């Protein structure tokens, strides 16, 4: 009879820990956003209403290089497209009544998908309950931590005079690199090639294209990998490796 309690407690513990880990990304997002010229209010709204770390970071990343709002928005939406795939995975596992779908959808991100779709060798009824618990706990934990951290990062960023003096202009690239790192370890062989092409196209694009277009254009690098293979599930490298290499809260 110990298993039900152990399962639930473990799910809650892991969910909360994941939230704390990705919340740290929120600090760098907040500082970055403010440094790119957004107000603290707008920064907070992004974390509250967009709630997808990768998209948010791309958004402010493009703005920081002088890109237009449109270019930033395109990058954010491109990066957010995988949440649609996540929704397809998570939907049947949660099997929520339709009226809850719009609310639950907001919490569909890398972390909640990973926790929800973790294999659970128990009976279907309990599996569903655990999946729902995982989704809820992880979702709320990441949401709270991410938003608190965003606000803290934004306020701290505001307080700093010259960002370059403190090396804050290295924070964005370092955070993006941390998001990218576990994906580079993925078994799919073309991933590193896609990254290399993306980097090269990005830099070349920055030099010749109008401000901010470089990053969305670099999306074409996905073609460098040739035909994408069949879906391999969501073992995107290292999700649970101590959380530090998870995609930033809301996932990105």
């Amino acid at each position, binding site marked *: 009879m110990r298993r039900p309690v152990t399962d639930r407690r473990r799910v809650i513990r892991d969910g909360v820990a994941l939230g704390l880990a990705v919340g740290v990304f929120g600090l760098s997002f907040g500082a970055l956003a403010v440094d790119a010229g957004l107000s603290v209010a707008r920064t907070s709204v992004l974390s509250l209403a967009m709630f997808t770390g990768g998209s948010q970071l791309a958004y402010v990343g493009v703005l920081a290089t002088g890109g237009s709002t449109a270019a930033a928005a395109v990058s954010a939406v491109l990066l957010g497209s995988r949440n649609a795939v996540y929704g397809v995975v998570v939907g049947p596992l949660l099997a929520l009544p339709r009226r809850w779908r719009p609310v639950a959808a907001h919490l569909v991100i890398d972390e909640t998908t990973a926790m929800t779709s973790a294999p659970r060798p128990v009976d279907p009824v309990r599996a569903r309950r655990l999946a729902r618990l995982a989704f809820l706990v992880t979702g709320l934990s990441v949401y709270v931590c991410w938003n608190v951290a965003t606000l803290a990062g934004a306020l701290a960023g505001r307080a700093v005079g010259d960002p370059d003096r403190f090396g804050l202009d290295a924070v964005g690239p370092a955070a993006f690199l941390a998001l990218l790192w576990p994906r580079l370890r993925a078994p799919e062989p073309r991933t590193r090639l896609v990254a290399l*092409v993306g*980097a090269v196209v*990005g830099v070349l694009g920055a030099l010749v294209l109008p401000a901010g277009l470089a990053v969305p254009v670099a999306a074409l690098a996905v073609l460098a990998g040739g035909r994408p293979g069949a879906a391999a599930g969501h073992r995107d490298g290292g999700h649970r490796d101590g959380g530090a290499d998870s995609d930033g809260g809301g996932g990105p």
Partner: protein
Amino acid sequence: MSWAAVGAVCLACYLLKLLGMSVPPSWVTGRPWLAGVSRRLPVALLAALVATGTVTSGVHLVLDARLAGLAAAVLLLAVRAPLILVVVTAAAVTAALRLLAPA
């Protein structure tokens, strides 16, 4: 940049999530390339963001202290350091280099 623009992009991201939850699974499994592209997009975009943020400044190629900061980040990521350490060290190394060798 208006609030309407911010609202619009947030709505777009939300709709993507809702779309996923509303689509029958067979629609996606019948298109395996979708998942593949969706997996690669963050890789391409993140790589572009890292590269442009490290070696460019506006429309110029600028090699400066950021390189050292990112090199430090790579080392720390290779030994699985926690994120906060990676980011703080990148900033610290960059700042230190600027302090010691103002260009």
